[in-house]
C-alpha cells in the first residue's frame, strides 16, 4: 500500500449549457454511429432526418445563446480555451445550416447511388463539431484540434464513394496535401508558443501588448505567424494555396464537395478571424499586406482560371476560390481596426458573405449532384446542354444560385458582395475593392456560361441518350435546393434582419 498525498487534480469549470450547440452535434454523431451499426438499415431518409434534427437543435441552441451573449457580453469557457461570443455563435449557426442542407442532399444522393448508411452523416456531424471548435477556439492548440477533427472527417468523406476511383484519388490527394499544411500550422503554433510562452489567445494578446512596444522584431513570432497563415490559407483555399481544391472538389461525391466548400471554409475563416483579428492585432501591419495579396491572387486566379474549365464541378471550385478572395477583402478591411473595441464593418461583412455563400454553393452543388446522375460523373459542361428542357424547375434554381454567385441584385449574393466592398471602401481599401468588382465581372462570364449552356444550347446526342437514366431525385433533394433557393432570393429582397444581426459581430471574447 502506498499512500502518498496526491494533489488532487481540479478540472476546469465547464458550463455545459453554453457548450450545448457543440455537444448536441457530437452526441448525435456518436448516437448515429452506434445505433446505425447495431440496427438494420433505417427507413429511407431516417439518418438524414436525425442529422437535420441535430443540426437544427444545435442552431436553435446557438440562437438562444446569442440572446444570452447579447445581454451579458462575451466571455470564455472551459478555463479560457473556448470563446463564447456572438462571432462564435454566428459561425456555429452557419455551419449548422450547411450540415442540414448537405444532409438532405446526401440522402438524395445516396439513394441514387444505393450507398445508404449512417457513416456520411456521422462524419458530417463530427466535422461540424470540429468546425465549430475552430471558429470559437480561444487557444491555438484547441484550434488545431478543431482543424484536425474537421480535416480527418473530410478526408474520409472525400473518398467515401467507394466505387469511383476518382473519389479515392480525391481523398488521398486531400489527405496528403492536408497533412502537409497541417504541419505548417502546427509548427507555426509551436513557434508562437515559443515566442510568447502560451498558446492561449488571451495570454498571447496580453504578452504582446506588453512586449511589442519594447521589442518590435521577434523572428520567432513572425515565422510562427507566417507558418500559421500558410496552414490556414490552405484550409480556406486561398490562392496560391488553392491547388488542391479543383481536383478534390471534382473527385469527391458532389454533396461532400458542397460540404467542403461551405462548412469547411466557414470554419477555416472562423479560425482565421480568431488568429489574425483577435490574437494578433499588434502585428496587423505585418499580416495585413499578406491578406491583401492573398485576396488579390484568389480573386484573379478564381475568376480567370474558371474561364477555361469544362467541368462544372471544377468551375464551381474555381468560383469558390474567387469567393474566398471576396471574403479576404472583408478580412482585409477588418484588419484596419483589429484590436479596437469596435472592429468596424469588416467582420460583419465576412459573416454575411459566408452565410450567403454557404447556402448558394450548397444549392449549386446540389443541382450538380442531381444532374450528374447515378454515376456522379456527368458533370462536364456539355452534359448541361439543354438541361432547362429536361429539368426546368431545377434549371431555374441553378440559375438563381449562379446569378447569386455572380452578385446580381435581388439575390443574397449581391448583398454579400456589396457588404464586403462597402466595408473595404469604408476603410479606404479602394484598390482591392476595385479589383474585387472587376474580377466579379470576369466571374460573371463563367456563371453566365453555365446558364447559357442550360437554357440556350440544344442537347447533343450523348446527353439525350443519358437524359432518361438516373436523374430522378427524392423529396429530400428537392427540399434542400428549394430551401436554399428561397433563402437566396429572400435575403436578396429583405436583407435587413441578417445585416442587423451581423452588425453585432464586432466584439470578441478574450
Amino acid at each position: 500500500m502506498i499512500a502518498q498525498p496526491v494533489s488532487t487534480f481540479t478540472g476546469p469549470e465547464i458550463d455545459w449549457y453554453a457548450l450545448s450547440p457543440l455537444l448536441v452535434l457530437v452526441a448525435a454523431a456518436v448516437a448515429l454511429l452506434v445505433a446505425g451499426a447495431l440496427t438494420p438499415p433505417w427507413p429511407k431518409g431516417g439518418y438524414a432526418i436525425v442529422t437535420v434534427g441535430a443540426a437544427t437543435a444545435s442552431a436553435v441552441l446557438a440562437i438562444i445563446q446569442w440572446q444570452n451573449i447579447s445581454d451579458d457580453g462575451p466571455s470564455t469557457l472551459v478555463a479560457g480555451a473556448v470563446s463564447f461570443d456572438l462571432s462564435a455563435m454566428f459561425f456555429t449557426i452557419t455551419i449548422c445550416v450547411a450540415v442540414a442542407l448537405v444532409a438532405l442532399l446526401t440522402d438524395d444522393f445516396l439513394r441514387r447511388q444505393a450507398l445508404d448508411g449512417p457513416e456520411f452523416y456521422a462524419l458530417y456531424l463530427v466535422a461540424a463539431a470540429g468546425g465549430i471548435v475552430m471558429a470559437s477556439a480561444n487557444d491555438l492548440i484547441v484550434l488545431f484540434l478543431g482543424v484536425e477533427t474537421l480535416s480527418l472527417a473530410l478526408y474520409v468523406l472525400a473518398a467515401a464513394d467507394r466505387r469511383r476511383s476518382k473519389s479515392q484519388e480525391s481523398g488521398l490527394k486531400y489527405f496528403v496535401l492536408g497533412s502537409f499544411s497541417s504541419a505548417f500550422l502546427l509548427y507555426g503554433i509551436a513557434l508562437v508558443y515559443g515566442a510568447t510562452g502560451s498558446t492561449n489567445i488571451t495570454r498571447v494578446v496580453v504578452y504582446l501588448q506588453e512586449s511589442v512596444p519594447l521589442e518590435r522584431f521577434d523572428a520567432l513570432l513572425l515565422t510562427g505567424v507566417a507558418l500559421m497563415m500558410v496552414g490556414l490559407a490552405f484550409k480556406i483555399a486561398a490562392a496560391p494555396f488553392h491547388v488542391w481544391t479543383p481536383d478534390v472538389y471534382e473527385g469527391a461525391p458532389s454533396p461532400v464537395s458542397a460540404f467542403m466548400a461551405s462548412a469547411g471554409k466557414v470554419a477555416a475563416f472562423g479560425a482565421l478571424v480568431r488568429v489574425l483579428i483577435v490574437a494578433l492585432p499588434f502585428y496587423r501591419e505585418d499580416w495585413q499586406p499578406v491578406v491583401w495579396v492573398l485576396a488579390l491572387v484568389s480573386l484573379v486566379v478564381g475568376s480567370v482560371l474558371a474561364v477555361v474549365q469544362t467541368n462544372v464541378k471544377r468551375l464551381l471550385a474555381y468560383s469558390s476560390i474567387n469567393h474566398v478572395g471576396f471574403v479576404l477583402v472583408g478580412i482585409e478591411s477588418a484588419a484596419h481596426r483589429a484590436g479596437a473595441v469596435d472592429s468596424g464593418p469588416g467582420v460583419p461583412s465576412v459573416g454575411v458573405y459566408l452565410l450567403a455563400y454557404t447556402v448558394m454553393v450548397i444549392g449549386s452543388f446540389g443541382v450538380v449532384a442531381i444532374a450528374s446522375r447515378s454515376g456522379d460523373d456527368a458533370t462536364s459542361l456539355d452534359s448541361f446542354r439543354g438541361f432547362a428542357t429536361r429539368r426546368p424547375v431545377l434549371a431555374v434554381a441553378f440559375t438563381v444560385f449562379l446569378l447569386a454567385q455572380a452578385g446580381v441584385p435581388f439575390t443574397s449574393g449581391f448583398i454579400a458582395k456589396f457588404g464586403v466592398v462597402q466595408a473595404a471602401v469604408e476603410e479606404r481599401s479602394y484598390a482591392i475593392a476595385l479589383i474585387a468588382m472587376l474580377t466579379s465581372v470576369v466571374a460573371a462570364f463563367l456563371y453566365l456560361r453555365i446558364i447559357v449552356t442550360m437554357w440556350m444550347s440544344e442537347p447533343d446526342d450523348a446527353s439525350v441518350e443519358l437524359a432518361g437514366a438516373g436523374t430522378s431525385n427524392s423529396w429530400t433533394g428537392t427540399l434542400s435546393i428549394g430551401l436554399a433557393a428561397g433563402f437566396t432570393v429572400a435575403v436578396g429582397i429583405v436583407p435587413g434582419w441578417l445585416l442587423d444581426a451581423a452588425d453585432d459581430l464586432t466584439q470578441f471574447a478574450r
Partner: protein
Amino acid sequence: MTDVVWLIPAFPLFGFVLILLFGRRLGEPLVGYFATAMMVASFVVSVGAFFDLLAMPEEERANIETLFSWVPVSSLQVDLALLADPLSITMCLFVTGVGALIHLYAIGYMHGDAKFSKFFLYLNLFALSMLLLVLGENLLVTFLGWEGVGTCSYLLIAFWHTRESAATAGKKAFITNRVGDWGFMLAMFLAFSAIGSVSYGALNEAAEAGELATSTATGIAALLFVGAIGKSAQLPLYVWLPDAMEGPTPVSALIHAATMVTAGVFLLTRINPLIEVSADWVPTLIAWVGVITAFFAASVAVAQNDIKRVLAYSTVSQLGYMFLAVGTGAYVAAIFHMVTHAFFKALLFLGSGSVIHGMHDEQDMRRMGLLRKLMPVTAITFIVGWLAIAGVPPFAGFWSKDEILLFALARSPALYVVGLVTALLTAYYMTRQVVMVFFGEARWESHAEEHGARGDFRPHESPALMLLPLVVLAGASIVGGGIQLPFSDATHRLEQWLHPVVEFGEAEIEGTWANDNKYLLLVLAAVVTLVGIAVAWMVYQRRRLPVVEPAVLEQAWYYDRAITDAVGGPGRQAFEATSWFDRNVVDGGVNGVAWSLRNAAQELRKPQNGYVRASAGIIGMGAVGLLVWFVVVRGIL
C-alpha cells in the same frame, strides 16, 4: 372629394389589373362593360372633385395628395403626388367623360375581334397613364404618364400588328415621340439642377417670385415645348399622327384626337408662369409653330381621300390653334378649344368609325356618297360635328376658335391673318368631307364586289351601342361653347374657373383694338366660315367650280417623303456606321479582353497538372513567399 383624387387613376388601374388577370375569362362583351364602368367611376369622382373645388374659395383651389415618397435619393426628393386644381380636374373631366363614351362605343366597334379583351386592357392602361399625366404634381409623375400614354399609343396603333402598315405606323409614332421625350427629359434635368426640384409648385413659384434666371426659364420652357411638339404632333414632328390612323377608330378618337395629343398643350399651360418669365422668343416661337402647323395641316386636309386621314390632319391643324393660343398667352382659350375639340373631334372620329363600320371597312371617301339616306343618325351627328369644327355659330367650335383669333390679333395681325385663312380652309375641307360622304351621289354600289356582297351590298346604320355616344357628343358639341362666352365677365365661366392656374401667364388684352372690336371679329369669323362652306358646296355638291386637289397637297408638301428619304438614305448610312463601330471596335475590345483572359488562363493552369508533387510544390513556394515577407521584409529590413 379632392382628398380621394387618387381614386381617379385608381379605377382604370384596377380595371387594368383585373382585365390582365381575368380578361380572357370575362370575355366579350363583359370586359368592355367592365372597362367602361371603371371609366364612369373615374368620371363620377372627377365630377365630385370638381364640385368640391368649386365650393372652395378661389385661392385655395389646389389640393396636393402625396401618395408616397417615390424617389428619395439625397437631394432628389420626388413624391408620387397628385395635384387636384382647376386645370387638372378640367382635364380629368373630359378625359374620363369622353373616355367613357369611347369605351362604350368600342364595345360595338370591336365586336367580334379576336383580341377584344386585350383592346380594353390597353384602353384602361391608357386612361390610367393619361390621368397620371394630368394629375401629376411634378414633372416626373407627368413623365411617367407621358411615357405610359406613348406606350399605349404604340400598342394601340399597332393593335392589328399583323398588318405591315399598322406595325410600321406604331414604330413611327414611337420613334418620333422619342425626339420629343428627349426634350422633356432635358427639361427635367435642367429644372432639377436649377432649383433642386421638379415639382410644378416649386417651379412656378420660383418663376412668379422672380427667383428663376431668364436663361433657365427659357431653357426649361423651350425644352418642354420640344416635348410638347412631339406628343401633340406639331411641325416638324407631326408625321406620326396621320399614320397613327392605322389603329382602330376608337383609338384614333380617344388618343389621337381627344386626349393624348392635347398633353403638350396641357403641359405648357401647367408651366405658364415659366413661359411668362422666359425670353420673348419662346412664346413667339410657340405661336408661330402653332399657326403654321394649323395652316399647313389644313391645306393638306383639303386633298386627302381617306376619311380618317382628313380628320387626322384636321386634328394636327386644330392642335396648331391651341399652340397659337398658348403662344399668345391665351391659356384659357387653349383649354377651351381643347375641351370643345375633344367633343367634336371625338364625335367626328366616332362618326367616321360608324361610316367605316357600315361600309364594311371601306375608308376611301371616293367610294362613299349619299350615306345620309342609309345612316341617318350617323349623318346628323356628323353634320353637327362638321358645323362645330367649321366654326358655324352657335356651335362649340365657333366660340373657342374665335377666342383664340381674338388673342392672336391682339398679339400680331400676321398671326391673325394666317389663323383666319386656316379657318376658311377648315370650313372648306370639312364641307368637302361631309359632301363626299353623306351627300352627292352614291358611289359605293360600283364597288360592291370588292366587299364580297355581290350586288346587294348596302351600307347599314351602326348598332345603338355605337350611336349613343355619337348623340351625347353631338349634344356637347352644340352647347359646349356655353362654358365660355365672350359677352360679359359673367359668361367667362371657364376663365373664372381656371383663373388661379393661369393668373400669372394669361395675356392682358383689355384696351387693345382687337378687344374693343371683338363683336366685329365674331361676325368676320362667321362670314369667313360661311364662305368656306359655300365654296366647297359649289365645288363638290353643285359642281359649279373645278376641283382643286393638287398632288403637292395630297402628298403633304412632300414633307413626309423628304424625311423618309433622309432617314432611309444618309441616316441609314450613319446607323450602319454606328453599328459597324459597335460590332468591330466595342465588341472587338470586349472580345479581345476575353480572348487574352482565356489565353492567360491557359498558361496559368499549366503548372496545375493534378500531380500531388506539383501541388505541394506550389504550396511550398507560397510558404517560402510568406516566410520571406514576414522574416526578411518585415523583420530584418
